[in-house]
């Protein structure tokens, strides 16, 4: 029995005598967590799963088993567009975050003065403490037609008319890149700190210039960090709800927003299927990035 194997370093023979109750302490310790997870995670997801097999017709929920709602997601171009937009948004945000995050992590790593390094770290990581609602709101102000960004661009003479930066995809992308930046910087920075400095010195000793060192040594060795950062960014972006709601102005319809609206319209089956699609996309993301991660580590 599986339970018999539980216990702190119990050999096979001693199980008979001492191990009879050895599985009890870890089980008791895990019990509250398992109960909580069963009640507020597993059962809700099962309920959710069940509703995905119902359908919603003429303003009423049909409790009978049906694959209709799944079929709609499969064949209706409206849903294809939503799924495509969601993936595209997550993809662009990930590229954007990595493009900002990698050099930033590199700068944090290369700064010689510890004090500057610390303050930069505080600067990069502290925004996590501020609610995502506040940060998204900040971007609506910053990117507004009469906001500071347009003001500066106009004063600099780079544009004549204000750019439409907010209440469309552009604003959502910029704001999401901002929200996820710390999550991207961190794994990259960690992978850089773990680099053995002598490897770089060895490369320099062998006559490599800074670009060669970066391209042939630093970048390949920090690739796992980069992939890990991209993974977390992509996964979070798929599920992003608050920022697209606030900055999308109703024009950016991604899956999480769709699920929210369907739930609010008591169309539970559509909400459930949308959620299942989102869940599958997240799992696929995690799985494929894990594969990428393994590949990047092998090299």
């Amino acid at each position, binding site marked *: 029995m*599986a339970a018999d194997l539980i216990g702190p370093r119990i050999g096979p023979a001693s199980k008979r005598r001492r191990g009879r109750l050895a599985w009890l302490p870890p089980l008791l310790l*895990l019990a509250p967590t398992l109960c909580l997870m069963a009640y507020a995670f597993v059962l*809700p997801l099962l309920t959710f799963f069940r509703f995905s097999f119902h359908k919603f017709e003429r303003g009423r929920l049909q409790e009978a088993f049906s694959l209709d709602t799944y079929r709609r997601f499969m064949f209706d171009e409206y849903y294809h567009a939503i799924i495509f937009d969601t993936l595209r948004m997550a993809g662009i945000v990930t590229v954007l975050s990595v493009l900002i995050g990698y050099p930033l992590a590199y700068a944090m790593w290369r700064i010689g003065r510890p004090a500057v390094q610390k303050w930069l770290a505080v600067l990069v990581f502290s925004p996590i403490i501020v609610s995502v609602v*506040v940060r998204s709101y900040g971007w609506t*102000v910053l990117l507004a037609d009469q906001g500071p960004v347009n003001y500066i661009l106009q004063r600099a003479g780079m544009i004549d008319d204000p750019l439409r930066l907010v209440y469309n995809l552009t604003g959502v992308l910029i704001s999401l890149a901002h929200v996820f930046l710390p999550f991207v910087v961190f794994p990259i920075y960690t992978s850089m700190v773990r680099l053995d400095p002598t490897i770089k010195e060895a490369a320099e000793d062998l006559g490599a210039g800074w670009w060669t060192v970066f391209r042939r040594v630093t970048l390949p060795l920090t690739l796992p960090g980069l992939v890990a950062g991209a993974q977390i960014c992509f996964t979070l972006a798929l599920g992003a*709800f608050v920022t697209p709601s*606030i900055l999308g102005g109703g024009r950016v319809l991604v899956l999480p927003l769709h699920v929210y609206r369907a739930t609010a319209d008591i169309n539970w089956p559509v909400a459930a299927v949308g959620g299942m699609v989102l869940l599958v996309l997240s799992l696929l993301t995690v799985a494929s990035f894990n594969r990428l991660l393994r590949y990047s580590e092998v090299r």
Partner: protein
Amino acid sequence: MRTRNRIPPLRHLLLALFSVLAGLFIVSPLAVVVLNSFSSVAYNVFPPEGYSLRWYRNLAGQDAFYGAAVRSVVLALVATSVSLVVGTMAAYALVRYRIPGSDMVKAFLLSPIVMPKIVLGVALFMFFVEVGSLNSYWSLVVTHAVVTLPFVIAILSASLVSFDWTLQEAAMDLGAGPLYTFFRVVLPQISVSMIVAAVFSFIISFDQVETTVFLVRPSSNTLPIEMFLYLQKWQDPTIAALSTVLIGFAIVLVVILTVLFGKGALPTRLAAGQKAAQKEESS
């Protein structure tokens, strides 16, 4: 060394410039909120046409925000207490005992991190409707506990893995029973991680929108939801004033924690927690 020239190479200057711009990128949405909160007009315009405290006065008159803030703080405190106690027990069990399939158990316990929040929120909503506990306060607590629990488990199991278990043996050898040993020897060693986990848990609970939005009645919203719904309707700088207050609290929190953990230690700690969570997620 070649990189220690008197005049830094161009690429270093570019890197420094990039860092400054990135810093600006990070700070500006928060800074502009603070600036906007002192605006004298109701619409967003830059530079502000005038300065006033009218939005703070307006905020002071909004009882809904005040009530929501109190509810959020209480809920975050209750949820954090639950997940801290429960999560510490789980982390201890996972690290200390040889459990069959403990990797699977851990992956399961941490899986809410990867779950899109809106999915969890809707699923909880449907479930609570079905079992008829939608309007119960405990449903809310349980939800926030489940959301914060994985972070507590990740941070504390990382801390317990590096705990020197011979200290526990030493205590027991000196006659201390299991509970006495835990509270006098293990707990003091992981207390810093517990504080970090509590802070993390509080922040995460305080920031819940998707998971909570269907579970609260309009009259008893939490603060981020009240703000979120307010923003759907209005865009006046009242929300900027409120955000400024929240940013102020965040700064106070950073300062307190920095003092508590020594200079500059906080980001590393927070980052360590984040790392633990990320590592689990990618596994």
